[in-house]
């Protein structure tokens, strides 16, 4: 396993970040990844930045549909209901 024991470079590590966060790295890769992080503040900051980015992305979903659209939606529902009642009645 010569390849597995070689140290990761920072440039290689950034390509594995998602697999690391998703926990899909092979055990040997995971060891190399963790070993690199222990000695590299730059990559540690990079992972932290990625986590922050994901958190910011998650906040985008707090936007909701406008009140007008909401009212329109209920009107649509009532029209649909009336149509169904007419058809079935």
């Amino acid at each position, binding site marked *: 396993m010569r390849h597995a024991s070689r140290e990761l*470079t*920072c*440039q*290689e590590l*950034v*390509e594995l*970040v*998602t*697999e690391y966060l*998703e926990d*899909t790295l092979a055990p040997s890769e995971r060891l190399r990844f963790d070993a690199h992080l222990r000695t*590299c*503040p*730059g*990559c540690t*900051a*990079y992972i*932290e*930045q*990625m986590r*922050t*980015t*994901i958190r*910011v*992305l*998650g*906040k*985008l*979903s*707090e*936007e*909701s*549909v*406008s009140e007008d*659209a*909401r009212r*329109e*939606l*209920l009107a*649509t*529902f*009532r029209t*649909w*209901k009336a149509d*169904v*009642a007419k058809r079935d009645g």
Partner: protein
Amino acid sequence: MNSTRAPSPTDELELVLALRAGDEDAFTDLVNRYEAAMLQIALAYVPSRAIAEEVVQEAWLGVLHGIERFEQRSQLKTWLMRIVLNRAKRRGSEEARTIPFSVIQPAWNDSGPSVEPGRFRGPSNAWPGHWVSPPSSWSGVPEARLLSGEMFEQVRRALGELPTRQREVITLRDVLGYPAHEVCNVLAISETNQRVLLHRARSRVRAAVERYLEQ
């Protein structure tokens, strides 16, 4: 996360039956659960918020017209997401015909590196592949700046510049918080493909956040 609010199968069946019977509370319940997610999905395909809201309206109309034929074999949530996805895609391609192509789909290098190669030391250096300009910690960035309207604008713009496949995945995974297997299911892609698209998308968005914070 929205995915944790998904109703149990019994709840779902009751909701579907109530909706078929024209129960307005059931409809409101469903809207409360899924409308934010539907809006985010629509935003992934169309160029403006106004159009995204129209797509959501159309999708709900589609839900009402289709509820009679909805089969319990598929999950209600998956079914709803497919409806909005299809309408948003159709609308997105209609809009693309009226807007110059380059605006919608910039010429991104789709398989490029996650981080600009210039940030790393070259092969002749004693530490090839290591940072020249290491990323800095953002732990000191105030929350108000991190979650500011301006930040959201930058992130939205970065999302807008992603290739569609990447935008779909990152919207479902990170904006909406869906687990990987659900995203694969909704988009009909493999786990590996999902991960590759997510990785590219996150890398681009991180770079945009970095540019904004460190400008």
